[in-house]
């Protein structure tokens, strides 16, 4: 029962972030740049809940993008899933009262994401001016995402706490 609740809440969070990113944040751009909410969500689930959940959240976040915007199904799903999985490797270093590690991991994920997209979508179409893309897209997106992280991370943390508390309570009831 509680597991179903966690799944539903997680799915709602993915859909909410996707909707915000594709609609509301079009009007909140800073110099034509939007933050990457789905990546924050994916990375957070990775280091909060472990590799498996990071992988699954990443896969479904990416799949939503694929379905609506990508010509090839599965590309974004793969990128996001791997980022979620890699973040799960840092679960042991993670303490939820420390914001430095989440900020560092999310910026690192964002940088990797930018480089991967540049490599596969731009470099392979012989767009070689990496410095331009770095300064115009990758770095600004990273900064904006980190700024949004400061707020969104607290929300994800809060939801996760509530769910974990409820799971603990119901577990102790049965014992």
């Amino acid at each position, binding site marked *: 029962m509680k597991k179903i609740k966690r799944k539903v809440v997680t799915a709602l969070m993915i859909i909410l972030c996707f909707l915000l990113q594709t609609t509301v944040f079009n009007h909140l751009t800073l110099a034509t740049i939007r933050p990457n909410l789905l990546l924050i969500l994916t990375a957070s689930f990775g280091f909060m809940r472990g590799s498996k959940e990071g992988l699954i959240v990443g896969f479904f976040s990416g799949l939503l993008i694929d379905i609506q915007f990508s010509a090839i199904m599965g590309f974004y799903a793969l990128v996001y899933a791997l980022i979620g999985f890699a973040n799960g490797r840092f679960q042991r270093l993670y303490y939820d009262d420390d914001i430095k590690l989440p900020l560092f991991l999310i910026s690192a994920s964002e940088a990797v994401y930018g480089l991967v997209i540049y490599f596969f979508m*731009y470099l392979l179409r012989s767009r070689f001016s990496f410095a331009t893309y770095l300064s115009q897209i990758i770095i600004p997106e990273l900064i904006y995402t980190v700024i949004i992280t400061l707020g969104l991370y607290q929300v994800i943390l809060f939801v996760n706490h509530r769910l974990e508390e409820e799971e603990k309570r119901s577990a102790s009831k049965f014992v």
Partner: protein
Amino acid sequence: MNKKNQSSTSNKYWLFFTVSICILLMVLSLLTAGVNGPLRGFANYTVIPMQKGINQVGMWLSDLSDNFETLKDARAENKALQEKVDKLTIENNNLQQEKYELERLQELYKLDQNYADYEKVGAHVIGKDSGNWFNTFTIDKGANDGIKVDMNVMAGSGLVGIVTETGPDWANVRSIIDDSSNVSAMVLSTSDTCMVRGDLSLVPSGEIRFEQLENNDHEVAVGEQIVTSHISDKYLQGILIGYVSEVNVDSNNLTRSGYITPVVDFKNLQEVLIITTTKADKNGTGESAQ
């Protein structure tokens, strides 16, 4: 220890499983169009209605804030607009006269093609590509409304882009400022053709690049109109793209390139018009008539 090992093997199993699904999806969607259909249909019933809803709330809010503009502003604007109406009426009369003359002359020459009269359908923009790398957007009309891939999309009087994918009640449009967009265009006054190529690094400045314009005696001045060309197989002829803002002769001395200021404001696109005839339709009917 044992438990930890177990969870790490299960993680590896999950990783392997997910990666294989992704690769399978990629291969399938490259080889056949069979996967895309059901998945896009799935989007039609989940995220698309929600995006439409959010868009409606957004439009309602912007209407609301418009209503709060003071009456004074409205009056001043009204006065300015009235003057403009008078000016335009005179201009319109002159143009009407010229139009009749043109029609008469066209009839004489048996030229009955009028490029401005394409049939159009309006649609709302409901969502934009989630990343910063591409400039595609989603509109709220799809295959059920008769939208087909390769239909040209306009906003106001200018070219916006082309439909690349359709779902049942939504369609994706790639705008001409997108990095992977190439439009065959021509200079209106001289009919010299060129390529208008989207460039991500120019998106913040709001300009588009054009290339491969023949370096001949025809002078191309700043402010000259660039329209879609007669040789394009995707874009209908004569749709305005923008005005030349800079022309340079390339180092090979054979071609010219430069920048265009598009007529469409890509940052604030809300409504677009979709031309319901594609170039293929037009060519097809043209051939069968011959």
